[in-house]
């Protein structure tokens, strides 16, 4: 079930990333995609009747797979780092162009480039 939910979240994330023009929404979509991959990794580590992977000497209980959980840790940290950096870049763009609309920012940038390339008469 969790695996299916992770695929659904991935779909929503990719759709929002592609369809929405707002840069902040795009960042949120990236976060959603990351959450879906975390959920997927945790769900594939599940085992029926498995306990949290904390084991003391002599215990033989069934544990869930600890490897995906260790990998998920990296995913969370790297996502946090990427989102913080991306947010800074979005802030810089917003301060310069006064909009979060990706299409308008592109138009402004191409207009600026055209103006720079136009020879002075």
């Amino acid at each position, binding site marked *: 079930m969790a*695996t299916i939910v992770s*695929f659904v979240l*991935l*779909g929503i994330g*990719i*759709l929002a990333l*592609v*369809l929405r023009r707002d840069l902040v929404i795009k960042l949120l979509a990236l976060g959603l995609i990351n959450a879906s991959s975390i959920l997927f990794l945790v769900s*594939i*580590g599940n085992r029926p009747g498995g306990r*949290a*992977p*904390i*084991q*003391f*000497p002599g215990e033989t209980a069934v*544990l869930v*797979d*600890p*490897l*995906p*959980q*260790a990998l998920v*840790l*990296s995913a*969370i*940290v*790297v996502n*946090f*780092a*990427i989102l*913080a*950096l991306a947010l*800074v*870049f979005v*802030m*810089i763009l917003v*301060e310069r162009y006064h909009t979060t609309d990706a299409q308008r920012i592109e138009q402004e940038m191409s207009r600026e480039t055209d103006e720079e390339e136009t020879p002075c008469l």
Partner: protein
Amino acid sequence: MSTQKRWIVCSVGIVAFFVVLLSITYMASMPDSADSERYLSIPIEVSGAANRVAGIYLNTRLFDTLIEILVFSVAVLGVRYYLSHSPQISLPSLSESAVVRTAAGILGPLALLLSVYFATFGHISPGGGFAAGVIAASAVLYVAIAQGMQATEARLSPQRIAAAEKGILLFLFLWILLPLAFGDAPLTELLPPGTPGKLLSAGSILPYNLLIGIKVFFGAWLIIAAFAQHRGDL
């Protein structure tokens, strides 16, 4: 077909492609559990950590974790650099209500205590350095909400914290190279694993958890402080 409709069709197509591709990959080859079995077959006495996850990311796959810490440091550096080089903005200060400030003042120290517990007991119970660091940064954010950003920055100066953060990173890398001095390969465990389940066990995992906790705390606090300085206030 209008541009927007074309975008929607393309997007749905891309999503459908990815979902079908992932589903087929997942169904065709269920994740190979051989790797996991290999990790689980290692007795806990080897790493000494009752927490299997800590035993993996701070012992068997320590190299991954160190690179991950490096990525985090680079991100902190990037955030501070770009924010300090972009013009400061002055938004109207939003003061929190007395209820929020009082609650934050009470919750801050409790969250800090929880972070110390997570870092110290991360090898025998759920937790670890990364979680502890983020909780500690949240705790200081609570304190900043309660007492104001300027008072908090006066105690935790970003310049000094940045130097300490880089110092911890350097120390961690020196620690993994230290075995070379004894003629061993880098990443060789220096401390004895001890008895799993005891507080003083798991070799270097306890100091790693503490150091990573402090480092992540410093890094997250630097990011918060950089955003707050850029904005003028919290």
